[in-house]
């Protein structure tokens, strides 16, 4: 069935708590790289919350922007990979195939959002995090690129379950880890091609905007922001 998975982020609701970041690390077996490596700029947060200060004192405002793979329809990262380690899957996701990656890091350069991450070393988990792997997600080794997959393991699990039960997937039946964990309900996930889904409805909002739309990547993540 032809789907276009997408997300809507309500920036007016986001509090910058970064629960989504922690949940993503837990769900997707992402290692923390440690102080030294983070200082060198090698942190691997598939979703990160960017914080921008706006205005001059005393009218200072804080703006939060969660950024993760936008699963672009015209993804610049896909065409530059020489070994097809990233390609557009039939459900509209930018799929990452870890086994094919040889580590040219070209996709990382091509991504305008800088949401692609490279395993500069073999990931290490300090105790007791080494007991907390998600068995549905592979652990990547050194030399491989990785990025947000919209928790494709959860998508596949739900689809297989729906197939086994001979029914259609219901909107809101499952969510990626970040959406699930958001205390402010700022994130909504669903099928943008399904006119009944909440995400398609919210995407029509007059507060809708896309990140770096002018670059022409056609992202599938819509941000809701009131411009004041």
């Amino acid at each position, binding site marked *: 069935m032809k789907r276009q998975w997408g997300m809507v982020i309500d920036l007016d609701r986001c509090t910058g708590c970064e629960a989504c970041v922690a949940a993503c690390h837990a769900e997707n077996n992402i290692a923390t790289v440690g102080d030294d*490596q983070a200082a*060198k*700029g*090698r*942190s691997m947060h598939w979703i*990160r919350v*960017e*914080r*921008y200060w706006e205005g001059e004192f005393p009218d200072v405002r804080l703006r939060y*922007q969660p*950024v993760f793979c936008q699963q672009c329809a015209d993804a*610049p990262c896909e*065409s*530059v*990979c*020489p*070994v*097809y380690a990233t390609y557009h899957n039939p459900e509209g996701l930018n799929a990452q195939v870890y086994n*094919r*990656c*040889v*580590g*040219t*890091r*070209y996709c*990382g*350069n*091509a991504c*305008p*959002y*800088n949401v692609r*991450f*490279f*395993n*500069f*070393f*073999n990931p290490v988990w300090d105790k007791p995090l080494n007991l907390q792997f998600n068995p549905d997600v592979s652990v990547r080794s*050194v*030399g*491989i*690129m990785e990025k947000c997959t919209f928790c494709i393991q959860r998508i596949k699990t739900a689809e297989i379950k729906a197939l086994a039960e001979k029914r259609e997937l219901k909107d809101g039946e499952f969510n990626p880890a970040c959406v699930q964990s958001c205390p402010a309900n700022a994130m909504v996930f669903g099928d943008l091609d399904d006119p009944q889904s909440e995400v398609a409805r919210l995407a029509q909002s007059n507060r809708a905007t896309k990140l*770096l739309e002018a*670059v*022409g*990547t056609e992202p599938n993540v819509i941000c809701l922001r009131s411009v004041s």
Partner: protein
Amino acid sequence: MPVRSVEQLNEDILRPLVRTSWRYYLAVGILGSIVLAAVAAFLYQVYSGVGVSGLNEPVFWGFYITNFVFWIGISHAGTLISAILRLTHAEWRRPVTRCAEAITVFALMIGAAFPIIHLGRPYLFFWLLPYPSERGIWPNFHSPLIWDAFAITTYLTGSTIFLYLPTIPDFALLRDKAHGWRRRLYRSLSLGWTGTPRQWHRLEMAMRIMAVVILPVAVSVHTIVSWDFAMPPVPMWHSTAFGPYFVAGAIFSGIAALIIAMAFLRKAFHLEEYLTPFHFDKLGKLLLLMSLIWGYFIVAERLTIWYGNDSPEMAVYWSSSQGRFTHLFWFMVFCNLLVPFSILSIKHFRTITGTVIASTTVVIGMWIERFLIIVPSLERKYLPYTWGSYRPSWVEITITAGTFAAMALLYMLFSKFVPIISIWEMKLGMRQEAQSPLPIPVETRLPQVVAETNIPASVS
């Protein structure tokens, strides 16, 4: 002009193959150690991970890709000199072609190693080659890296053949003069060449075709390398001018490298009669021309970006006009424009020493130029939160030093086994010049041969 007989010519050009001084062994030893250190550094990187370099997010490419582009650029020297000068029948190219073609082949080999060195999983580099794999997939032909693989393979094959073909008659000469294992080596390399008119004609025809074919290949290679940067939407990379800009820069750095190599060969092998100030003067003028063309491209790029005032591009622009790369940028302009222009535009300074000084600064300046194309853009992409900075680690510096040592080493080994000046082409040129009814300007003459009898064109 000094008088040279054929025997003298043979002896001069073959002397490096016959006699080896302790200085040669010392140089090979030093260069070999640096290369070994670089190999060790690379193996350490394969063992530990690319994290031992200075790369990070967002600067995924740094010294390695700088070296890649730099060495592929250097490789354009040989093609330009050899192919264009052959096609235009410029006689002064005769002593220069082989050392230029050798630079091309070795620089290509070194440059082509870098796409493997910088990989996260370098032991799987062969997945970029088109072969029927058990996984059922082929390379992604949309990717500029695959275009690189095809272009560099074609250029390397073509350049090696271009270097090898005119060497066959010289290998035949060496086969006739050598003894022992050297004789067996040269017998294989000369392929049983006997010098019949048919063989000569076919060889010259093949050289002519190769010269015509290798030129568009050379242009395409560095254009495709530039497209590694120009294709993705990165600020100050995504520029239509990159193709011609890189080709011009490649020819520029290539000529500079050739001048340095020639000056070194002249001194080390006492080839003062063959590589004359005239050659350096001519190449110096070419270098000046390329310096001006390079300057033109820099102005065209920077003016357009500054005038357009596009925010993401201006962020990158400012990093080299006001930010942390400012000093490096102006040093590059000093090396690539100021010094070459001052030295090479004044005939009095366009001596061998002058051109070598200008060429050295150009080689340094062009390396910096490749670095300044790659790193500032990656440091400042679209989202300011993700801006980063890059500092090379000892691993990258060691490997970079290793490539310069490897180039020098390969060149030294080459010149020990192959005559660095094409003997038969020199003899042919000398004979044609002596027979020419037109007066030839003194400086352009090849080493003259004295006519001992009244028969003209006496080669004895």
